[in-house]
């Protein structure tokens, strides 16, 4: 199905992006343009429009409404505002497709995706968008349904867009990392697949994102970017292999270890003993990961593993960037019951968000608006000093039930202790 029957748009500005050592997306687009395929004229006009953007320093796409049968979101519609000049790419929609958790692929599955995208789309795929989806970019309105059907038959589903539960991501974690403190894939799939309806039929006040990192290095940037961040950690003592500590000291020198490990501990919880072993004050340790990162053969997370949950991270709009706030300082994540409890808690938070957030308000903004104590009360979580940097420093608050609250928290703590015994 050769298709070279079009006049190639000159792209002098984009051509500049073919120079230099880094792989060029422009060269890739030209390969598609010159492939003589069904989509080649579309890519030619796409390049024409992009060159036009480079000249005018403006974008020329507008949104719209395109969905597949049965779903309300997941397709990002793009209609060209300069379709008169570039008609073949007048419709250039994106299908957001949920990747396998942890971005694991075989070449077999990727080749099948490529074939589908050559048949229905543009041949342009992004691994992956900032949303965490595989972005199948460049589909005409008519081809959105058959393209989705083919991908869906292959075992892949549409991701989130608009005011909905969004596609999530997890770090490589358990699959290839010694720092991983819980089964990220299990938590990720259990939560998202339980509340999938909220993804496919957008009915939330605004977007809601989960992200799953196996340790406090937070490789998927969950604290900054997720409404609901699940970050692995441990409660007991970190593991120290003193023989291997000695090897590091031998290899790097005492001075180096003192300056770059001991002195960089944020809570002064480390001491290098005279015999080149390491003393750890585990009560002072905040599980920041620095010493484990430097000496990963010698230092490991403890055995009593689980996760911290932080809620409310988001980017700039509308009230400024927010990071997640600690809402659960520690949850166990080992048994099926532990994971089920996490899924249930996630559901309670989504319900709270659905019922209480204003339109176009992220949950972090809701918490900011109503105050953390009101949020905690609404989701049935007791206040904990780990949630804040320090207690209140302004006296402007009504406290006539302060003593009663103290009694209530004491009684709760006692009851919990009794139940544990």
């Amino acid at each position: 199905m050769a298709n070279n029957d079009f006049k190639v748009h000159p792209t002098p500005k984009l051509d500049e992006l073919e120079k230099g050592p880094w792989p060029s997306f422009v060269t890739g687009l030209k390969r598609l343009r010159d492939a003589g395929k069904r989509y080649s004229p579309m890519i030619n006009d796409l390049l024409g429009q992009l060159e036009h953007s480079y000249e005018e320093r403006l974008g020329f796409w507008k949104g719209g409404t395109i969905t597949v049968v049965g779903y309300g979101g997941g397709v990002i519609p793009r209609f060209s505002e300069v379709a008169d000049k570039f008609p073949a790419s007048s419709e250039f929609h994106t299908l957001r497709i949920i990747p396998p958790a942890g971005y694991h692929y075989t070449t077999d599955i990727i080749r099948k995706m490529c074939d589908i995208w050559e048949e229905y789309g543009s041949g342009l795929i992004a691994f992956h968008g900032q949303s965490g989806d595989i972005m199948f970019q460049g589909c005409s309105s008519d081809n959105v349904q058959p393209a989705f059907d083919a991908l869906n038959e292959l075992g892949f589903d549409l991701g989130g867009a608009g005011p909905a539960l969004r596609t999530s991501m997890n770090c490589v974690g358990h699959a290839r990392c010694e720092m991983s403190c819980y089964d990220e894939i299990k938590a990720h799939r259990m939560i998202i697949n339980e509340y999938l309806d909220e993804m496919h039929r957008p009915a939330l006040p605004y977007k809601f994102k989960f992200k799953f990192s196996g340790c406090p290095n937070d490789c998927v940037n969950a604290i900054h970017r997720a409404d609901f961040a699940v970050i692995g950690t441990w409660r007991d003592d970190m593991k120290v292999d003193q023989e291997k500590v000695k090897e590091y000291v031998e290899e790097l020198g005492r001075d180096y270890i003192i300056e770059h490990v001991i002195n960089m501990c944020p809570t002064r919880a480390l001491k290098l003993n005279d015999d080149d072993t390491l003393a750890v004050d585990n009560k002072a340790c905040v599980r920041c990961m620095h010493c484990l990162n430097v000496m990963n053969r010698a230092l490991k997370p403890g055995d009593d593993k689980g996760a911290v949950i932080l809620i409310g991270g988001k980017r700039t709009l509308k009230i400024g960037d927010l990071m997640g706030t600690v809402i659960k300082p520690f949850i166990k994540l080992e048994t099926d019951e532990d994971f089920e409890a996490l899924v249930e808690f996630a559901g309670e938070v989504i319900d709270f968000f659905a019922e209480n957030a204003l339109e176009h308000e992220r949950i972090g903004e809701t918490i900011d608006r109503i105050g953390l104590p009101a949020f905690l009360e609404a989701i049935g979580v007791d206040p904990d000093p780990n949630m804040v940097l320090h207690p209140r420093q302004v006296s402007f608050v009504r406290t006539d039930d302060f003593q009663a609250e103290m009694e209530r928290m004491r009684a709760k703590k006692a009851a919990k202790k009794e139940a544990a015994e």
Partner: protein
Amino acid sequence: MSEAAQKPRMPDETGVPDPFPYMHPVMKKNYGQWDYHFRPRPGVLCHVAKSGDKIWTVRAGTQRQMDVFTIRKLCDLADKYCDGYLRFTTRSNIEFLLDKEENVEPLIEELNKEGFPVGGTGNSVSMVSHTQGWLHCDIPGTDASGVVKSLMDLMYEEFINEEMPNRVRITSSCCQINCGGQGDIAVNVQYTKPPRINHELVANVCERPAVVARCPVAAIRPALVNGKPSLEVDEKKCVCCGACYAPCPPMQINGKEETRIAVWVGGKHSNARSKPRFHKLVVAGLPNNPPRWPEVGEVVMKILRAYKENAKDWERIGDWIERIGWPRFFELIDVPFVKHHIDTWTYARLTHNHSTHIQY
């Protein structure tokens, strides 16, 4: 037409796919049972499981927006050296997974021959995580793909080597929503003028109360312009954030000269040493200058050089600046401190120095 043919196909709501059918057998076998890792050379990781099994990861940079021919080329290499197993990182690097050490060097050689840089591990500058831009977004101020390609060309050596004090994670965003996220260095669009309103279109295109509600500084109000219902902006209040543009395209925030670029530093996601941080403003008002954005590249390289020369091992850019202080940082990169560096947003007071802690 038969009844079956008329009935539309309903989706299989399968959700997040199970990754285990696609996971390398060594990773599957040792799932949750890894012991340690080391980096034999830049761009290569070797993870050792408690069982003694090893897996080598060869990490390479890609252009993220890939044509199927590039993808198939990468698949050919994965078939040849990795039994067909690969994955991607959150920064769009591709990772080839090998259980045979002897395949590592030939794979690297072939990747380099095909034009894919091997690196992005340890103390390198990894791939810039970025947004869509003019290629596909409906509200972009610039083209992240082009900015990133231009930057990665400049930072090629920093990607393939591990010679920085600590890892450097750079992000780029095409509007002030900042989808690119926080970074050690962030290259983001910064609008400089209030929106220009096409009053002819507002009533038909925009849900006016929603647009009014979207403004973070309450600068937008409904108005009748030339007898048509429209919106007006109090330009003294307007902070030029572009929040109104997405729900109401007739409020054009972008302009050939007006859309500018700002560079920010010191953001960090990890909890290692210091808590996660937001990035802070270094310089704004850089021209949006396609196709290579040289002014942006110059600032980024200046910051990288100052960091490389002055930071201690393991200090991220934000850690380093915290130690040496902002006055010294601005001196080192030769940027004058101006009034716009001082925060005026909510909680700005928390960013003031209420002490005599001053570095002379």
